[in-house]
């Protein structure tokens, strides 16, 4: 059952081929059996899942249940779940049980989807390898000595390892696309404002966006149909009709103009990755798309701009974790200052502290204009690059990340090398554009991701291209050894 796609599970559930309870029990059993190897799931909500599955079966019995009713899913532990510990991968929130659901969680609950549990992640979504989690690193199912990518590494590994057919994730600089690429699955970061951020613990508010992870583009469309909604609890959420993303999957792609940014094929790109991506481009061309070389001249500025803006916002967003109201508080503080210092030094990991310090520095008097002010200007330049490009092309395609999954510790003591993992993904966050990654090849037995970037709110066209690509390739059906 765990090799079915979500689309197939929906058919099976609606046609009573199996029940939601059976399905839920099956995936709970897989989590019990395999999670020790991957460390992908950090909270399993077994009792709640079985109750919800029972209710889903009742709804399914009426014959008028929504598409995802009864489908088991995992939520990244960044989404607040009412009554269920939401840690954000941090010691700081190891004891935090929210009294409310994130809108994303609520949307899935309404539709009758079954939450199996919560997935591991880089602490406060800060990381590209899942090594910064308080709960230990997640292992890549394709090579357990390698990282799964981050920060949504738990969700990606869980989907790749068939512990769930799909999972929610978030992407601030590549945190959906990069782990999707490294784990050989499909993942989509929607346009900023498409999915509500309410109840999603903030890392960098102007960049954070939630999206789905699944094995296929078709499944991502099904999940996004439910995730995307207008929410008046999030002032940055855009009040715009949510199209049926499944409806346009089979449109012919012939004649689509696809931009290939030359800056995404320069130094630093692994030759194996490059070869896989170029082969994918040939496959697309064979389907009738027109490839056009384009330039995104400010691409090289995206990582530096991002590492000013994201930490600046994070430094303020994480100030609320002060030991006063909830979460971790140090033992026996001798005074207020001591409580703040020790709570935050003990509660936050090294990478989170590094980013808080960077952000605080960038916003400080005398540095603001040189860092934050300049980074905002760069952000506008990057946005303009895309606006110009999309005047000429329908979609942009390139590699998701420079190389396949690396070994644990390989970039551990070099933050800049780690930050370059997101060199191809960060620009879309800065511009607020949607981007996705689909599997497009293997290098040294590890998956390679193909990135598809769309214009604002053009997720349907991205999914259309990705789905059509998956009709002529089988990378998305491959599984790590011992899984099938």
């Amino acid at each position, binding site marked *: 059952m765990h090799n079915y796609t979500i689309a197939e599970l929906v058919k099976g559930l609606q046609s009573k081929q199996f029940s939601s309870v059976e399905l839920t029990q099956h995936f709970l059993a897989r989590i019990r059996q395999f999670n020790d190897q991957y460390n992908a799931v950090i909270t399993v909500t077994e009792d709640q899942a079985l109750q919800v599955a029972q209710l889903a079966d009742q709804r399914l019995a009426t014959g008028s249940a929504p598409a995802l009713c009864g489908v088991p899913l995992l939520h990244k532990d960044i989404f607040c779940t009412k009554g269920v510990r939401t840690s954000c991968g941090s010691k700081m929130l190891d004891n935090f049980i929210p009294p409310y659901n994130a809108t994303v969680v609520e949307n899935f609950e309404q539709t009758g989807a079954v939450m199996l549990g919560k997935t591991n992640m880089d602490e406060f979504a800060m990381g590209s390898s899942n090594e910064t989690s308080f709960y230990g690193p997640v292992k890549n199912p394709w090579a357990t000595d390698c990282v799964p990518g981050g920060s949504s590494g738990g969700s990606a590994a869980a989907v790749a390892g068939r512990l769930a057919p799909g999972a929610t994730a978030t992407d601030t600089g590549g945190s959906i696309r990069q782990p999707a690429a490294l784990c050989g699955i499909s993942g989509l970061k929607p346009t900023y404002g498409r999915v509500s951020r309410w109840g999603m613990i903030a890392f960098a508010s102007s960049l954070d966006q939630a999206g789905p992870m699944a094995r296929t583009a078709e499944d991502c469309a099904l999940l996004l149909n439910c995730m995307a909604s207008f929410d008046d609890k999030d002032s940055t959420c855009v009040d715009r009709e949510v199209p049926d993303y499944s409806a346009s999957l089979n449109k012919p792609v012939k004649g689509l103009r696809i931009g290939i940014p030359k800056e995404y094929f320069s130094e630093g790109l692994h030759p194996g990755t490059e070869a896989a991506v170029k082969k994918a481009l040939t496959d697309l061309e064979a389907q009738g798309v027109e490839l056009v070389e384009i330039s995104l001249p400010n691409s090289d500025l995206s990582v530096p701009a991002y590492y000013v803006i994201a930490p600046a916002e994070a430094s303020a967003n994480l100030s*609320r974790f002060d030991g006063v109201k909830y979460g971790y508080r140090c033992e026996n503080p001798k005074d207020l200052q001591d409580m703040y210092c020790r709570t935050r030094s003990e509660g936050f990991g090294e990478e989170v502290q590094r980013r808080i310090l960077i952000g605080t520095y960038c916003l400080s008097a005398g540095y603001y204009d040189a860092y934050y002010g300049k980074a905002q200007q760069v952000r506008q330049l990057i946005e303009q690059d895309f606006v110009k490009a999309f005047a000429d092309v329908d979609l942009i395609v390139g590699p998701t990340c420079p190389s396949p999954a690396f070994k644990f510790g390989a970039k551990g003591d070099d933050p800049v090398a780690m930050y370059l993992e997101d060199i191809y993904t960060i620009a879309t966050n800065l511009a607020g554009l949607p981007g996705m990654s689909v599997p497009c090849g293997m290098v040294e037995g590890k998956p390679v991701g193909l990135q598809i970037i769309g214009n604002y709110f053009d997720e349907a066209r991205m999914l259309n291209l990705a789905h059509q690509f998956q009709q002529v390739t089988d990378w998305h059906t491959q599984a790590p050894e011992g899984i099938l």
Partner: protein
Amino acid sequence: MNWETVIGLEVHVQLATKTKIFSAASTSFGAEPNTQACAIDLAMPGTLPVLNEQAVHYAVMFGLAIDAEIGQVSVFERKNYFYPDLPKGYQTTQLEKPIVGRGAVGIQLADGSTKSIRIHHAHLEEDAGKSVHEGDLPLGSSGVDLNRAGTPLIEIVSEPDMRSIEEAVAFAKKLHSIVTSIGICDGEMSQGSMRFDVNVSVRPMGSTELGTRTETKNLNSFKFMEEAIEKEVERQIDVIEDGGTIRQETRLYNGDTKVAKAMRSKEEANDYRYFPCPDLLPVIVSDDTIEALRRALPELPDARQARFVTQYALSLYDAGVLSSDASIASFFETVANSCGNPKLAANWAMGELSAALNNAGLGFADSPVSAEQLAEMIARIVDSSISGKMAKQVFEAMWQGEGNVDDIIDAKGLKQVSDSGALEKIVTDVLEANPAMVEDFVSSDENKRKKKLGGFMGQIMKVSKGQANPQQVNQILLQKLNELL
């Protein structure tokens, strides 16, 4: 040397919205700690602010009331600092693009002169909670009450245009008058609805350069503000005259103990690391909204003062006092219109009633004697049913809740005797009972007689138990005594 005082004010005004600036929690005062703080106010992870439109409208109304530029695109920023009563670790406020730009407020001084105080800007922001150091708390710990966290404020920043304590107080009172008149603030100073930070410096008279200023924060009454400025001016002059220099610093003044002290110097000041809040979009106020608010703007204190002078023939001073506050003005107008005697209505509202309310710590809106009751009482003075003196007793009884005017007059037997036959009899009886006084009056020369009338009046009032109509008695008495000459 003669010193000139230079004062600028930053005034925090709590907006009278039902709910908080970024959440749906109630803003009402006095609830049990932390019962009016929702997940957003507590800065729970993943929560997001949604701007209260009413707060924006109130801020725009203030801008219109002081004829200021309205920031049609204003931006919320985060002001970062750690304090337990600040749940997010930053205050959401405005800095570069405030909602209200430059404007001016006119003040009137006791000598009748007027002055315009420039407003630099006014911005929207959220209030913090309160630290609690008393009550049922474990030893050595403090509590936090977040009921107030997220209450909408406008902070009004003046230019350093005031040159005396009198001007500063007049300005503060004028702001109070404006914000209560347009209904954007309840004006309850004791509940912290208006709080003042005063920036004070001194300089040699005639100098055009500003001296180093200090800021005394969080004064919540006009009186404390006055005291704090007075003390600070004295302190600064002493320091300079003793050869010292003024440190730029933040100070606190305790109105109860009358002690002022330095809190932190400029060097110790926080670097607030302001930056635009990414959770909130820029606030756009359309021309249509501004025009609609302008049309609906209630009468402003200056316009009301002018109207009171013409409509009720009040002096400029009386009109100023009665128009300063929406609740006083509406109380006065109800009394004046129902009793038909604006002058008496003004005297009673500003005199007896105002004093009683002050003593009881009440506002006009909560007066135990209603405007209708006061009007009925004044009507009884006007129709000579009671004298002004009796009216004070009637007022006292109404204040104590002893009923309406006529019942009190009956119950206390206060009805004034105006029946001329009865009065004539009383006068005759008194004259007959006091032949020596009559003799003394008749034998005195003309200019001394006037003074001797008082003696007869006293006797007559005693006999009539104070109920005789004094004007009528006076007439009858004069007539009778003149007959004897």
